[in-house]
């Protein structure tokens, strides 16, 4: 294992996140310290309201901790300005959402291509990468179709292609199989596993799905905003 692989892709130190809910302070994350190794299929699990999504949002740099520090891909993200952290997300972090969150006005091809436009990739390379990813997820023939012409499984495949097309450091997925039937969910999990292996990217999930949890290489169990257990599976 090289040094860069040995360094964690995510490191949290004493992270606390509290919300002010109409004058009532709610602590969603309560002093979590944890590291997630690179290029792993990592799972954050726990009951509803345990803080899984909040933790994923903090790792994804779309929310800021109340106290504590977060390093993502070697960058201390807490000190970055809004524009810098947005640019950081554009290059290093990708999301797969439960509800797919594809642009309804763009075709499958255009949805996948969109993150590459944000990082200013030249047109030729953009085209090659986009078509390559659509072929990899088995949707090359549906490239021109809009999301409303695709099934739930196909939409999530487009979302996976969109997440991976820019070769991010981390892919974050919040309940990616929740809106899919079990058979399609299994296919999507298999696809993500395959893509993670091929692209050597770190996948971090928040999920309840036992089917998905069974594939975890790193499992972080959260309860009441605290990390209560960390299990590592030897691959």
């Amino acid at each position, binding site marked *: 294992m090289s040094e860069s692989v040995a360094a964690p892709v995510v490191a949290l130190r004493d992270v606390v996140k509290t919300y002010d809910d109409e004058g009532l302070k709610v602590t969603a994350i309560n002093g979590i310290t944890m590291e997630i190794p690179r290029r792993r299929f990592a799972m954050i699990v726990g009951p509803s309201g345990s803080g899984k999504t909040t933790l994923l*949002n903090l790792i*994804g740099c*779309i*929310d800021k901790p109340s106290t504590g520090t977060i390093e993502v891909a070697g960058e201390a993200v807490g000190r970055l300005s*809004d*524009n810098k952290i*947005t*640019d950081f*997300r*554009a*290059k290093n972090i*990708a*999301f797969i*959402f439960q*509800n797919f*969150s594809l*642009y*309804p*006005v*763009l075709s499958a091809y*255009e949805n996948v291509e*969109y*993150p590459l436009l*944000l*990082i200013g990739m030249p047109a030729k390379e953009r085209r090659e990468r986009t078509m390559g990813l659509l072929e990899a997820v088995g949707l090359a023939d549906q490239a021109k179709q809009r999301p409303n012409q695709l099934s739930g499984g196909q939409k999530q495949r487009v979302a996976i292609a969109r997440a991976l097309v820019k070769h991010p450091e981390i892919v974050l997925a919040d309940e990616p199989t929740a809106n899919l039937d079990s058979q399609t969910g299994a296919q999507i999990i298999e696809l993500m596993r395959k893509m993670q292996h091929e692209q050597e990217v770190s996948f971090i999930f928040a999920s309840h799905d036992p089917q998905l949890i069974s594939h975890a290489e790193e499992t972080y169990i959260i309860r009441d905003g605290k990390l209560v257990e960390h299990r590592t599976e030897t691959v």
Partner: protein
Amino acid sequence: MFKIAFRNVLRNGRRSLMTALAIVVGATALVLLGEYNAMIKVGMETGLVRGMGHLQVFKKGYFDFGSGKPAAYSIADYEKAIDTIRSDRVLASMITVISPRVSLGGIAGNAAVDKSKTFFGSGLVPSDKDQMNAWDGYGITNGDRPKSGLDDAKPDQVVVGVGLARILGLCKPLKLKDCPASEVPQPAAKLQLLSGAGGAPNIVSVTAVKASGQGAKEMDDSYIGLHFAKAQQLLYGGDQHKATAIVIQLKNSADIPHAKARLAQIFARDKLDLEAKDFDELYPSNKQILGYFMAMFAFIGVVMAIIVGFTIANTMSMSVMERTNEIGTARAMGVRRGGIHRQFLLEGAILGGLGATAGIAIALGLTHLINHAGITYTPPGNASPVDLYLLTKGTQSLLATVWILLTAIATLASIVPANRASRMKVVDALRHV
């Protein structure tokens, strides 16, 4: 970004259509009113330039006191003054017509039917007036060149206003419509004109050969156009024959300030006791009428801008609310706040641009219909109806202004919704269902 913005505009087609309709109505109203205003402006200007020229040269003081004492304020050496102006190299290239005039007032009588009426007379050189009537600086007359009705070789002929012709019992000899049955038939329209510059009045006999509508009723009931030499004879009698004014018509109205300044230089250089007035000074109502129409245009423009602004702001606000999750996704993927802001401004601008383009196209179609519908109306102060005609030549700047104005308003009205979209917290936006 443009592709996404354009598709987002088409996404909720019915709402976008209703929003665009408000802009279409605004653009159509502004273009039609602007074309009407433009027609009023160039129509009035063409009429004034044909009638009184761009500039008139007077003996100093005539403009204020001359009508009460014409002999004292007339230009004695008017022929020399005309030669001086005509031979000036700077002015020569600008001038189309330069001609002497005599303005006078007096009493016109028709002895055959025992009727008389005060008149306002304009003594002019018929061929010069006919040349002035050919002026068409804005290309709106389709070659229409009304004749003065007078002839250089027939100094005894006069043209009278239609109203004056009726008053003086000349309806039948001049073959006017709707003549009163009680009017006494006459073989010819003979008139006696009485006037003078002071002392004993002078009398001349003339023949009215034509009745010509003068627009405003006051003028129609008192106007007599007569030969310049006959007007001199009537005003000055046996004294030196002078001119009350020298009329100058230019090729382009834009040359007025330049020509006026040059005339002032010439008068100062040659120590001539003369001054030049432009048509806005001679006919101040022109500016007032145009100002009134401009104020009306501006008022309607402001009302339209407010309606368009509120409609766009409402539509964009609804769009932001509906696309909250989408905004969160875009921000999570790495679109900066500025990018979200620009996205919504662009959508507002596209809506405004599409609406304005459609509105202008409809306005041009309506203009064509109106101009060929034969609609007439009677403007304030006019004695007779005129064709309702909307100007289409040279209105490119109006169309561009309306398009830019409405597109800019649509863009500006999107600022508040765009601000709201760009300031959303990513996690809150993603949580929105």
